[in-house]
């Protein structure tokens, strides 16, 4: 495991340049910067429609210093497949690795079919889903990744609603079920861990998949300065376990010396504030705690006990 360390001006590759239009404090922007830092220059990047695309590519400006393409919201995996096939056919396979960076909506909802096809066909592509747990670009609508209890604009809290009710889709397990050789979860709150995983994924032959948790201060409703802190809290409460799955085997689980209660995470964000305000909110919080407990059980998160 390589350890990344920024040594200052010259060693930073800066492949995702300043001037992009992400909100101040955007977790995705941090993540993308780190992904490219780890990936290096020899990649071709595909992004679907979403915050990342919108903040990085208002013609004639682009924040990308690697070759980059955006086509539609649902087809990043297919476009990436075409690029990989094209490189092969043109004898340029050595030139670059293909990297897709896509939001949770683009990945787990509208792009699920193409992603499944890309996995199945075995393309040599690294697919990274940055999961900010809603459709942020269009104004914080729920996605299949919005966690239970969160209020989103299409699953709002209201007089008879506690917000989202469906559990998050388990994307990593779905990738594993597809036989993807390298699968990992990551968090923008653990930047060096993320970079290491990106490098492993890219070095892996065939499809690889990283499910990357990134806070969105605008959608989660927290101060812009708290992005990293809150992303870490998701890990520290057991709501976002960090692990790798290599050839179907879970490896390298990030263990927690002392798992925090989920309230520590929930109370930092406006999207959960109704749980602390509405009658019956405690019950929802209890259920969210149960999810964390189940994760701890499944992945052996707790160092002691």
């Amino acid at each position: 495991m390589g350890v990344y360390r920024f040594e200052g001006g010259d060693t930073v590759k800066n492949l995702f340049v300043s001037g992009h239009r992400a909100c101040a404090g955007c977790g995705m922007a941090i993540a993308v910067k780190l992904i490219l830092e780890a990936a290096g220059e020899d990649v071709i990047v595909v992004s679907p429609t979403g915050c990342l695309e919108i903040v990085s590519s208002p013609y004639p400006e682009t924040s990308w210093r690697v070759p980059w393409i955006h086509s539609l919201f649902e087809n990043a995996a297919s476009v990436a497949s075409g690029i990989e096939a094209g490189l092969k056919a043109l004898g340029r396979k050595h030139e670059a690795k293909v990297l897709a960076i896509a939001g949770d909506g683009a990945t787990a909802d509208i792009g699920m079919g193409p992603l499944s096809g890309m996995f199945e066909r075995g393309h040599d592509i690294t697919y990274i889903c940055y999961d900010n747990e809603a459709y942020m670009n269009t104004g914080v609508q729920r996605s299949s990744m919005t966690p239970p209890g969160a209020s989103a604009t299409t699953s709002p809290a209201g007089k008879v609603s506690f917000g989202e009710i469906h559990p998050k889709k388990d994307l990593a397990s779905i990738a594993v079920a597809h036989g993807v050789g390298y699968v990992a979860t990551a968090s923008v709150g653990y930047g060096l861990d993320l970079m290491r995983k990106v490098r492993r994924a890219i070095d892996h032959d065939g499809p690889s998949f990283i499910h990357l948790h990134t806070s969105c201060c605008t959608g989660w409703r927290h101060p812009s300065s708290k992005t990293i802190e809150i992303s870490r809290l998701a890990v520290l409460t057991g709501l976002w376990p960090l692990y790798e799955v290599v050839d179907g085997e879970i490896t390298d689980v990030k263990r927690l010396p002392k798992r925090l209660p989920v309230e520590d995470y929930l109370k930092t964000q406006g999207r959960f504030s109704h749980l602390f305000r509405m009658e019956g909110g405690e019950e929802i919080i209890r259920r969210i705690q149960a999810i964390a407990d189940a994760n701890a059980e499944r992945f052996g998160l707790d160092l002691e006990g």
Partner: protein
Amino acid sequence: MKLRIGAIADPGTSIVNRTGGWRSEKPLIDHSLCIRCFNCILYCPDSAVKYSEKEGIYFDYDFCKGCGICANECSGRAIYMVMEEK
């Protein structure tokens, strides 16, 4: 500017977009407290934290949006935010 076919853009051109104008608070650093963990560089969403041997950590105010992450993540508590004056 003439448009290029297919809306194809040249690399890294968003650098013309001075997002420093978005800022309402700005980061300052007390160099004496910096322990060079480089968290600020790692986690700045706008790549606006720079470092040189000579100057240590400094900010590129052309792009800093004032999110405050660097201050929040600073191991040495060397970075702090102040209101922007204009």
